[in-house]
């Protein structure tokens, strides 16, 4: 199989189909690892609305303290080895 090693143009165009976690992660990593050119108007591409900024995280309610439990009344510990199957008689 031919390996993708040589760039096709001075600016490599990577298109990711899928805007979920994997695609977004890849875009982030690529942007972090390689120089990304400034966006320029491309006639074939329509302007994309800028998503609103993500608001600050809501505070997470602190759960009530877990009551101290009494000592265990039963702790069952079993260690078992699964037996090997009995050898099949030969002859």
């Amino acid at each position: 199989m031919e390996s993708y090693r040589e760039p096709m143009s001075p600016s490599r165009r990577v298109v990711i189909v899928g805007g979920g976690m994997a695609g977004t992660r890849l875009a982030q990593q690529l942007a972090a690892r390689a120089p990304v050119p400034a966006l320029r108007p491309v006639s074939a591409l329509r302007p994309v609305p800028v998503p609103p900024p993500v608001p600050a995280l809501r505070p997470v309610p602190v759960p009530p303290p877990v009551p101290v439990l009494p000592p265990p009344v039963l702790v069952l510990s079993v260690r078992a080895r699964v037996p090997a199957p009995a050898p099949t008689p030969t002859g």
Partner: protein
Amino acid sequence: MTVEVTIIGEEPHPAYNRVLLAEVLAGRYAPEVIALPAPAAGVRRLSGVRVVRIDRPTAEVVCDDGRRVPYDALVLATGSNPVLPPLRGLFEPDGHELPDGVHAFRTMDDCLALGAAVRPGARAVVIGGGLLGVSAARALAQRGAQVVLAHQGEHLMERQLDPGASGLLLRHMAALGVEVHTECRVRGLCTRTVDGEGGGGRAVSAVELADGYALEADLVVLACGVRPRVGLARAAGLEVARGVVIDDELRTSDPRVFAIGDCAEHAGIVYGLAGAAQEQADVLAHRLSPTPPLPEPMVLRPLDPQEGPAPEPAPEDRFVGNRSAEWAPPSGSWGRNGWAQTGHRAAPGDETPTRHTDAVPADHPACAQTDHRAAPGDETVPQYHGTRTLTRLTLTAVPGSAGGSASGTDGPLDLAAFGNPTPAPGDDVIHLTDATRNTYRKVVVRGDRLLGGILLGDLGTVGALARTWESNEPLPATPLLHLLTNDGGS
């Protein structure tokens, strides 16, 4: 050289952490809370746009609005679709619309629609008792619905839990007010005609069971797993099995086309897991970056031949299903580049977060660590050799419950599972149950290696176990310590 990155997504929403969708459904988080950090300013993002065709000869993708986007490298990260079971009444003849009240649970739109439909006292039936179904049922219960979970299998979360752990989970679900029916096959849906815009529609009224009983329902959630989205790849002539087939360089059968995430199949495995998807994305970013930065320090290990040729996973085991219910920390646990670690909330005594929180395929030769070693003759190119991850889930308490009674059934329940918890002949099984605290711990050991395990109720040891599992390190001479102490016996 620079990289022009264009990301094309169908969903109009900003990217989000689908691991936390159940928390949005439960009302614990607003949708924007689980949004992922926006891509860097230089990344072009086309939202609400669907790619309808890959034109490989011209190296372009064709979008539903007619535009053509050229590429030098194309990455398919198309994800997966929910499986819609063949239920009588689910669709009308030649119809494609689900009845009102019937929802899949895969996307933010699914989640928002379901959240808008649920009311206190609503009768909800969740079909499917896997990780997703359990999470959805818990979330609906938190919203005040009367929830019945119908599961065809013998016990809940069969892919992650054994019967003992599942029994404990079932007790917990019952304490949350969820009525669970196992070995319960659903035959069809009953619908009624409702008035609607543009004519009458259908709304679900009951779920028919195979034994003749019917469960009245205002809402039905289909949580029957997912299937990789491979239509684009197949139509483009790429090799497709269950998923888009990729090699260790994440290439498809076309060297200019790559695939990652839920749609990809590597070494016969479709992971369907956030952790694996992120690991694949990281490796591919290395590969596609023309000027990779200094390599990160990595722990390398060869595959252990003593692991032996693990059995080929059954087809149904290869795909772990919809992972919308995977647990991930909601805040305060952002990893590098602002990404949420999809795994490991630090447990008490676990100061070293590890990487993932996903479901795990059984032990498989491909489940070595992602290998960032240079390939022979290639000093810079990393490869992907599979992912070892673990499933974590926290079932939070329903408001109004005691939040931690002595029985432990009405507070939150933590759960973790990894590897293969089913022992083979000759394996050691170490099993600890604390009836007071409602905890369950089990690990399976083969030789000096950890093969799999289940923790329920108390994840104090999950850090040590996860590190051992992920690195495939030899166990101490007394592996029982892994279960008894929070520091792994060290």
